[in-house]
């Protein structure tokens, strides 16, 4: 006779339980509600005979519901034939009416079977000699009826433990996955907060942030478009991009602007599964799905982050949007800080301009003088190769270099014609008065040399201290030159402005006596157009002023 091979059918049994049952040598069946059974493992010969017998199938069909009920109690099918059902907890709870797919069960055979009518019928059915078959089966591992209950209980415990272990493993895996994502997020935020320094070039920071996010989320590209917000200054309307994209930057910007329109006032991240649903021109060519994270301050829209196409082919999920969102928060803080910093800078410079205008207003001839000295001082500092920050400080020192004139009587400052020695002494006090006015402002400490020493001369004949050569601080030498140049180039109470060529000739002539010779050489080669533009602007302002 031939017996059908056993098919290990799909099973919900935990793998470790199957292994253990295998080692115990018990037969594992897969039983369908119609009574058909398949051997999953350890098909003893007797088991194969049984599952093929129609009478066994009938008994199984009748007992099927019981297999789902009490797993710790064996179901007695025939004398000496027991089944221990191994339904999942969920199946046991929901019952047979809910789920009629095959259930796993352990088949236990005892010696009583060999004496039963049913066994004889099976042998007849298979055309086997009853005695020979019984003798052969007696060699198989048979259980005694006394053991069956204990064995069933143990198998049920093993099943329960294995299922619980499985659940714990699944839980551990999902927790580890979640923890891994949290690590990813934390490490990203650490990295970014470390590089979030206000005075680092913002472009660099934002480009890095885009790149990091593209890598961490694992998308083929990630872009950041900043809003058309004037307070963002040079960042306004800029696009930052990480990853290869088929479109040109201007097309990407246009796409970003359309997306920004689409999301309107939305604050939460958004995942779009199919970009064709969004009416954004050119988007579907580079993106199947899309993740969009709005960057918003309390009051206004600052920009959007948007990216697409996971590199592993998966779809974008809420985990990705959560990651992007926490980065978006950092970016928003960065942009807000930057705007505040810029506001403060603008306020500071505005205040200084107001202060210098107030000084210059004391003497209509010197209108705009401080601003022009600041401008040319900075240009000279740049030509001398000083760093950007120092050049900016020279500019500010230029703005305030004459602040001490507040302490000089107006009748002296505005006096037409030559000053008396006594009057000149009063004028000569303005650098030190200026120094005293500013000395308590900590943020302006570095500017003091420019204020104090812009009337010193290279040959030591200047005031207030008569310093000479390189003893005169650099800020003093720079502003001294710019100051003298502007004085010669504009009308004064005591004389008219000199011609430009004449002024340049004077600077050259006094190099090495009044001026630092090296700076004088750099100075005469500067581009003076911005200076003339400024003069023109100041003259127009002057004309508009009421007489």
């Amino acid at each position, binding site marked *: 006779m031939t017996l059908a091979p056993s098919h290990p059918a799909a099973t919900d049994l935990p793998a470790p339980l199957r292994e253990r049952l295998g080692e115990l040598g018990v037969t594992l069946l897969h039983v369908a509600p119609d009574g058909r059974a398949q051997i999953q493992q350890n098909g003893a010969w007797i088991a194969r005979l049984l599952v093929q017998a129609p009478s066994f199938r009938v008994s199984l069909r009748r007992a099927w519901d019981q297999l789902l009920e009490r797993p710790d109690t064996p179901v007695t099918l025939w004398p000496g034939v027991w089944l221990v059902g191994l339904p999942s907890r969920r199946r046991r709870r929901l019952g047979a009416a809910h789920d009629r797919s095959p259930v796993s069960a352990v088949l236990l055979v005892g010696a009583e079977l060999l004496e039963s009518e049913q066994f004889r019928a099976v042998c007849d059915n298979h055309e086997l000699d009853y005695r020979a078959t019984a003798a052969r089966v007696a060699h198989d591992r048979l259980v005694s009826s006394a053991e069956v209950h204990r064995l069933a209980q143990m198998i049920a415990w093993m099943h329960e433990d294995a299922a619980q272990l499985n659940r714990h493993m699944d839980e551990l895996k999902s927790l580890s996955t979640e923890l891994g994502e949290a690590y990813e997020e934390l490490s990203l935020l650490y990295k970014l907060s470390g590089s979030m320094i206000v005075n680092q070039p913002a472009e660099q920071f934002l480009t890095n942030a885009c790149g990091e996010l593209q890598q961490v989320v694992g998308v083929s590209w990630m872009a950041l478009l900043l809003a058309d917000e004037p307070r963002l200054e040079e960042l306004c309307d800029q696009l930052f991009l990480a990853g290869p994209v088929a479109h040109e930057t201007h097309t990407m910007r246009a796409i970003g602007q359309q997306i920004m329109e689409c999301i309107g006032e939305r604050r939460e991240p958004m995942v779009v599964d199919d970009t064709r649903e969004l009416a954004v021109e050119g988007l579907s060519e580079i993106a199947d799905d899309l993740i969009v994270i709005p960057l918003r301050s309390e009051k206004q829209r600052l920009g959007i982050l948007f990216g697409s196409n996971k590199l*592993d*082919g*998966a779809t974008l999920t809420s985990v990705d949007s959560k990651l992007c969102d926490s980065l978006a928060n950092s970016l928003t803080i960065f942009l807000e800080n930057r705007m505040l910093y810029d506001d403060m800078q603008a306020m500071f410079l505005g205040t200084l301009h107001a202060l210098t205008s107030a000084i210059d207003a004391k003497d209509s001839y010197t209108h705009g003088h401080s601003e022009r000295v600041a401008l040319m001082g900075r240009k000279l500092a740049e030509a001398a190769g000083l760093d950007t920050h120092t050049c900016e400080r020279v500019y500010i020192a230029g703005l305030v270099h004459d602040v001490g004139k507040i302490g000089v009587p107006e009748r002296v400052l505005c006096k037409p014609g030559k000053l008396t020695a006594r009057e000149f002494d009063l004028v000569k006090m303005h650098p030190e008065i200026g120094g005293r006015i500013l000395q308590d402002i900590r943020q302006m400490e570095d500017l003091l040399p420019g204020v104090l020493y812009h009337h010193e001369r290279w040959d030591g004949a200047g005031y207030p201290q008569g310093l000479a050569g390189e003893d005169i601080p650099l800020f003093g030498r720079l502003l001294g030159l710019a100051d003298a140049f502007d004085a010669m180039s504009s009308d004064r109470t005591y004389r008219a402005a000199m011609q430009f060529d004449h002024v340049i000739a004077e600077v050259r002539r006094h190099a090495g006596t009044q001026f630092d010779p090296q700076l004088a050489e750099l100075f005469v080669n500067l581009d003076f157009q911005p200076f003339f533009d400024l003069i023109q602007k100041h003259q127009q302002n002057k004309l508009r002023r009421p007489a």
Partner: protein
Amino acid sequence: MRTQPLILVVDDESHILHVVSLKLKNAGYQVITAEDGEEGAAAALEHLPDMIISDYQMPYMTGLEMCLKLRGEEATRDIPAIMLTARGFSLAEHQLAQARISAVVSKPFSPREILTHVYELLGDQPQNGQENVSTP
């Protein structure tokens, strides 16, 4: 014979073991773990992994001591190693050179970054990895 590279992960914090193991397994590597330096050294000598990822600060034997010990054994002399350290903690150059540590990653680390180091040291990811395989 091993079909996929075997990586030994050593850390006394089980959550780190879980996160790193899972990331590596998902990428197609075989992983074994140990919870301190002594156990790690024993596991390395027994299984001769293709790579070691170890925490620095551990009871009984630091990750650095463990690596130094393994460098003294013929069988484990050339196994590449990555060291995990607490943020802000730095190991001296000569120590790293002596224990032949290929890369140092500070905690909290990015699991993705660790995987990048692994790819760099062991070559491309194994064939059956799921990390960059597209799903239907």
